[in-house]
Structure formats: structure tokens, C-alpha cells
């Protein structure tokens, strides 16, 4: 697993207080991990901080799953 994926999952686990095993790549923040809309904004903020990137609103709206987040961050860091 890539370093980015590890870091993303760590943030999700810490922020949402869910078991690591539940944080699969296909897991949806809202449907599977119990996040509310404010949680998703906070997650995006946490990703921005961790990876030193800016995630614009239109991109943030499309980040619904763990994989979405990893893919977006990878595309920015590449």
C-alpha cells in the first residue's frame, strides 16, 4: 500500500474514530463510516494540512470514498 493511502487511512481512523479494518478503499465516508457533512469538510481540511495541498470545493464535493481521497491526493502530488 502506498504511503499516501496509509496516511489518508490514518487520518480517517483518527478523525472518525472508526476501526482501521472498516477503512477500506471503497468505504464511503458518509454511508459506511458514519461521517456527517461537517466531518467530510473536516476530513478535507485535514488532508489539505497533512499533504500541504489545496482541495478546491468542486473537487472536495467529489471525494466521497477513501479511494477518491487517495486518488485526488496522488494526482496532486504526482
Amino acid at each position, binding site marked *: 500500500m502506498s504511503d499516501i493511502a496509509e496516511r489518508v487511512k490514518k487520518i480517517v481512523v483518527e478523525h472518525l474514530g472508526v476501526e482501521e479494518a472498516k477503512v477500506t478503499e471503497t468505504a464511503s465516508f458518509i454511508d459506511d463510516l458514519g461521517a*456527517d457533512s*461537517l466531518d467530510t469538510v*473536516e476530513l478535507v*481540511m485535514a488532508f489539505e494540512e497533512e499533504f500541504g495541498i489545496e482541495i478546491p470545493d468542486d473537487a472536495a464535493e467529489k471525494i466521497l470514498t477513501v479511494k477518491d481521497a487517495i486518488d485526488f491526493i496522488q494526482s496532486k502530488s504526482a
Partner: protein
Amino acid sequence: MFDLTGKTALVTGASGGIGAAIAKALHARGATVALHGTKVAALESLAAELGERAKVVPANLSDPAAVEQLAKDAEAALGQVDILVNNAGLTKDTLILRMKDEDWQTVLDVNLTAGFRLSRALVKGMMKRRWGRIIGITSVVGVTGNPGQVNYAASKAGMIGFSKALAQEVASRNITVNCLAPGMIQTAMTDVLTDAQKEAMSGRIPAGRLGTPGDIAAGVVYLASEEAGYVTGQTLHVNGGMAMI
């Protein structure tokens, strides 16, 4: 009760009568305070009076960049901002027929938009820490209206709506957002009135007197306290009974 030891507070408009009283009251309860205003000398002397746990953070609130910088300066001076008191405000009173666009805009910018910008910048840290208090000093006229103050009344009513919406957004993060609406208070603004005018005004106030800045500060201390943690989206009217809403 109402112990604020270890908490930090940014009070805007702290060089004014009400703002200074709020800063003093929060400080007296143990908070470290950042005093914002435009009159640096007045802020410095208030900070000197308070001694330790008081910082000065001047800024022009009608300048968007300066407001963003103020949020950063306050966080740098205090380490973090737990309590934000949006108190700064100004009036440019005149009847609507004579009101210029800039009279409207300046009042909205300083009284309402600056509070929005500061809240947006500072709520982030509050969310992370799962604790925060945002308190807007609005006015009785934001609810009752007042001739000659369409701009001021709109800005103050706007602050109440803003606070109710934000309160709902962040309640789950243990952040409360409330307003305090002063009635007629003894400040530089009312000092210019004649005794006859003051008497006429007091006649309309069931308590029979103008309020003091301390009356307002006491309400702010309450809303800022741990004890008021279940109070959010509310407007506390402190007006001697002049309007019961």
C-alpha cells in the same frame, strides 16, 4: 462558576466602552485576552491596566485582508482563540432618503462581514479542539428597528441570523454561537445626549436607567462560560426591559 482560567478570547472593538468592559470581565475570570481596535493608544493603556494575559491586536475591520490578518495575529498572540467576541461596530445614522451607498456598505462591512470573516477563520481551530464560543454583540434595534438606522439595524439583525445558522453547523463540535443584544447603554455614544434626552430615554426603560457596560460584560461572561454550553443560537437581551422579545 464562570471560571475562564486557561481560555483565550479575542474581543473586537475593545477600545470602546462596551468592548473594554467585556475584555476586563473575561480577563477577571481568568481568560487571556487579545484586544482589537483601531485606537492603539487606548488599547495599549487597557492592556497595561490589565497587566499579564492581555495582548493588543489592532486592525481596520473594513479591510478584508486586515480582518484575515487579525485572525492570524490573534492566534499568534494567544496560541489559539477559544472565545471570539464580535463586538466592534459603528453607526452612520441618517434617514434612508439621505443614506449614501457607502454609509450602508461601511456599516455592513464592519458590523457584519468582519464577524463572518473572523468566525470563518477561527471556527476551524475551535472545531479541531472541540470547544469554542462565538458571541456577537448585536443590538435591540436589530430586532425592533429604529428610524435613521436601516443600515445599523440590518447589520445587527443579520448578525442574529448568521449566529443561528452557524450555531446549527457547529453545535455537534461543542461550539456555541450566541448573540447579546444591549439596549440603551452608557457609553461615549450616549454621553453626548443632554440630560433631558437621557431622562426621556430612561422613561421608556422599565428599569428606569440606562444600562452600564458592566451589565453587558456580565452577559458575555455567562455565554462564554462552560456552564452555558447548552445555550446556542440564542439572543440574550440586556436592556432593562425596554423591549421584551
